[in-house]
């Protein structure tokens, strides 16, 4: 790295960028990053093409007018990318510190002048940069979706900025688990566990907990920040419990390699199950929709993405529980986007700070 940039970063942020440079060398070398990028692009593009197949069969697409086809294509692209980001980044982030601990390279690093802030930030920035690379690689497909019509540039901006914020949140969560856990497998399993718990709980728990707390006017009793905090804490606790059970079972039953594969398979099955539950036709989605707590639903990553893209939940946020006929003033989409992405940004920053603290305490 250029000496002036290095010195400038240190002067401005007290950040020694050596860990970031080192991580970039390690992570971007060889065929693996390009392989992941290729698979990512293929899946994202393939999902869009599959979503558009019915278009070739007739003018109408599930009762949708032709001008909305571009919108459907882009929504498919964005949701597929959200799934891929939440699948790929935890594996990258959760191993970042714990793997070094396992390989006994961390001890020598801790004896140098690098600080916990340098280590965690350097690794987080590189994971985030990889996430951003994945997202950027899909921009040509997004541009193609825009050419089909029905999508405005600001909607693309809202969707991509939301995806980037989720990437930060997921990477910071993985980094936190990596800093706390002794083994990389524990860190990876707990990261996926917390994500699954967050996805499920942000749909199920608010529905159960908040119904009695609804005021007579029919709006949620809690603000979005308090609600998000409740869901996050519950997700962390549940994810931890899930991890403890999975680890206890797998350690007794299987060797380390089989245990890792089995845990990954379990995570995949759980993700599919979560998708089934919260998909627009899913039971949970409908139940929570009926309970009319749209802000809390928007805290689910998928529901959040739908919201910033002006989906069903955004409509509920805009018009209130009564829908478009309620006559209430509608908040602009920009406000919905700002609140939801802001919450993920805050949570990501808090987890980042937590990871620095945890790493500083735990050491090598």
């Amino acid at each position, binding site marked *: 790295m250029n*000496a002036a940039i290095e010195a400038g970063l240190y002067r401005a942020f007290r950040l020694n960028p*050596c*860990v970031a440079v080192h991580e970039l060398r*390690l992570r971007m070398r060889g065929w693996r990053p390009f392989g992941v990028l290729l698979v990512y692009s293929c899946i994202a593009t393939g999902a869009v093409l599959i979503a558009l197949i019915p278009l070739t069969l007739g003018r109408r697409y599930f009762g949708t007018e032709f001008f909305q086809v571009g919108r459907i294509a882009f929504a498919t692209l964005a949701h597929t990318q959200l799934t891929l980001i939440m699948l790929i980044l935890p594996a990258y982030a959760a191993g970042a510190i714990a793997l070094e601990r396992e390989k006994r390279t961390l001890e*020598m690093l801790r*004896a*140098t*002048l690098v600080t916990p802030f340098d280590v965690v930030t350097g690794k987080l920035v590189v994971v985030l940069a990889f996430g951003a690379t994945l997202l950027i690689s899909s921009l040509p497909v997004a541009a193609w979706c825009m050419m089909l019509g029905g999508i405005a540039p600001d909607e693309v901006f809202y969707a991509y900025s939301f995806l980037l914020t989720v990437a930060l949140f997921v990477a910071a969560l993985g980094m936190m688990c990596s800093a706390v856990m002794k083994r990389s497998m524990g860190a990876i399993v707990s990261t996926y566990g917390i994500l699954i718990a967050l996805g499920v709980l942000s749909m199920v728990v608010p529905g159960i907990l908040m119904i009695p707390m609804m005021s007579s006017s029919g709006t949620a009793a809690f603000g979005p920040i308090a609600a998000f905090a409740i869901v996050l804490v519950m997700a962390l606790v549940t994810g931890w419990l899930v991890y403890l059970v999975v680890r206890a079972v797998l350690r007794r039953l299987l060797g380390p390699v089989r245990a890792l594969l089995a845990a990954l398979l379990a995570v995949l099955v759980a993700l599919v199950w979560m998708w089934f539950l919260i998909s627009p036709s899913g039971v949970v989605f409908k139940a929570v929709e009926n309970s009319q707590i749209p802000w809390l639903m928007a805290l689910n990553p998928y529901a959040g993405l739908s919201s910033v893209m002006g989906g069903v939940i955004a409509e509920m946020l805009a018009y209130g529980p009564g829908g478009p006929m309620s006559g209430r003033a509608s908040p602009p989409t920009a406000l919905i986007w700002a609140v939801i992405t802001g919450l993920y940004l805050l949570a990501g920053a808090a987890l980042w700070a937590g990871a620095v603290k945890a790493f500083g305490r735990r050491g*090598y």
Partner: protein
Amino acid sequence: MIEINGLTKKFGNLVAVNDLSFRIERGDAFGFVGPNGAGKTTTIKMLATLLPPDGGSATVNGHDVVKEPEAVRACIGYMPDFFGVYDDMKVWEYLDFFAAAYRVAAQKRPQLIRDVLELTDLSHKRDDYVDALSRGMKQRLCLAKTLVHDPDVLLLDEPASGLDPRARIEIRELLQELVKMDKTILISSHILPELAELCNKIAIIEGGKLVLAGDVKEISSQLAGGLKLIIRTSDRLEEACRFLAERPEIASAELGEGCIECVYRGPEGQQHSILTCLVQAGFPVQSFSEEEADLEDLYMRLTQGMGS
């Protein structure tokens, strides 16, 4: 340079280091000896600021390891007993990374890397991948890494463990070179003859407690009850042995394998008077030498193998 006073470290009920105190001066090569589990690695880790002590204090270059960890890290080079290397990383990149971690300016790094590679005889491996190096080379590379910021103090935990004889000799020669460069070295090892060749001071530790610390020659002399001399003559060996036994400066004289082994208890630095007496008495002296400190013997006598 390094001062330890009443250093203590506990892991649960186990007292790994118990009230340890010693001092190492600038330029000393200090051997840290003890059986497995004696507390050597724990002590070195506390000095490297990687473990906080539970009691006592330790300073390196006048900096307290607890209160000023950054200042301590800046002046030490730490080499652990077991260490991993990064995959997909070249030798020069590895050294560049650690130099940057010690905040060595970017423009100074290329020359520094060339220098440490030359010192550790790895210049020809500059562009090789680290994980492809042999164990001995990795060990030398790790030593090169500890030198990239030109530290005054080196904390080396078993630097030659697991190496074949040739690699051990290479490491030993490298360490001797570092001693000549006036580095202060704290080295723990099980390979005692190597420590005897390298170190001027030793500390023996067992069960977390210091058994003995001081100058190698003084300690072995004290334990032997004096300085051990080895004398060879071409003839009249038994007669010479009896002659020596009668001298007041000689505590004991025994016949060894083709030589006389005697313990000198006279004034320090006057051993040559024994040689003069032998020559004046007409004995055909072929060789006259002091026996090197036998660390192994010392170690076995002082430790009981509690930790092994």
